[in-house]
């Protein structure tokens, strides 16, 4: 199963994760 997020954010939004990284519920994905 998969969850896809699509969202609007300021252009300086930055992901703070790496592709292929394991994540857990509540772990930060990005910041503005």
């Amino acid at each position, binding site marked *: 199963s998969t969850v896809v997020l699509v969202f609007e954010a300021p252009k300086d939004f930055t992901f703070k994760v790496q592709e292929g990284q394991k994540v857990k*519920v509540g772990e930060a994905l990005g910041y503005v």
Partner: protein
Amino acid sequence: LHSAWKSTPTRWYPIPIGLGALYLGAQQAKKKWDGDKGVVGIDGDNDEMAVKLRGPWQVHVMGALPLRSLSRLWGYLNSLELPVWSREPGFKLYSYVFGCNLDELDQPDLKSYASLGDFFYRRLRDGVRPIDDEPLVSPADGRLLHFGAINGAKVEQVKGLTYSLDALLGKTGGPGTPAAEDVEFDTNRAFDDHDFANINDIDYSLGDLLGSSQRKVDANSSIKDEQSSEDESSSMRSSSPSPSTPGSPNEDASVPQESTTDNLVRDASVALSMGTNVVPADASSPRSSVSKLREGNGLFFAVIYLAPGDYHRFHSPAAWVVERRRHFAGELFSVSPYIARRLSNLFVLNERVALLGRWRYGFFSMVPVGATNVGSIKINFDQALRTNERRPRSHPAGTYIEAGYSKASSLLRGQPLNAGEEMGGFRLG
């Protein structure tokens, strides 16, 4: 047993491949006879273009299999109650093979899980998943497959493979798009003080709250009158384009298209509707779900893959308001990274529930996508949602059923959620 094991001769013989080939051929012939011609969805960019299976031969073999039926059978088998003595060793073995952390379980007594399906949908102990303070957090345990910015309404599945954003989320409005189909949804969930916790995080226009809301209420009530007078059986429209009907819900609810959120709010006021995304190719009628962004903003995406051993409930990734959901009928291909690299349009082909709404920066959506082993998507605040059902003829691939959550909160006109709040999950089959 011992003598049978020792004395029974082993005879090797070829699997009747010809029989399998005949079966696949018959399936293909049936599809052609039905007029599907391999069509499994509709391209959101060009409504005249059907999405067909594209990929190597493995993909086509998979496409010929009755995946939805297999998924339901899998779900049934895993709902069978296991003997108590077998539960602990069985679930321990499963945890060992798939890497589940049993220390995190809310209910550590493995014998209390009656079936593998129950164990699969296990709940975690409070506090084992702390919620970060950043505005966007992970909604699920899993592996981050891909993320980035969206350019030109195309989302990248993997490097080099893209799919249409409109096909993923569905288009909004358009002549003949919504047809009245009452969908029951959970209005019992009380709107309490907890729901206001992050109200300051979400941006509203004054018009949303005051001026235009009256118009929306009026539009809504007139829609309901029309819906109640309409024959229920005629509400399920075919997927072929239909002409604009004067006084249709969309036209009645006409509000200037000022922004994405306005569109979303406007459409949420068409409280419950069922429509298809097959609309005339007239560009002026259907609009993208994300038609206009705020100045200085962009669109981003992230894809999280949940492996079989992962915790399979999903939580809210941000403080946001869910205004509506679109349930897309579809196939149930595996969504493993192996298939994602080979099958283009995978997330557009599979059955999914697109939850649309807004957060502090504008548009926000979350799309749980089903797979062969986990075809059932559950949303806690939407008891009416039924996924992975035997597909009715009136709800073909590429179409969706839409429901609005405007009644969940009269102020926010949607279902408010805090970051980290449990929203639902994936169940086996």
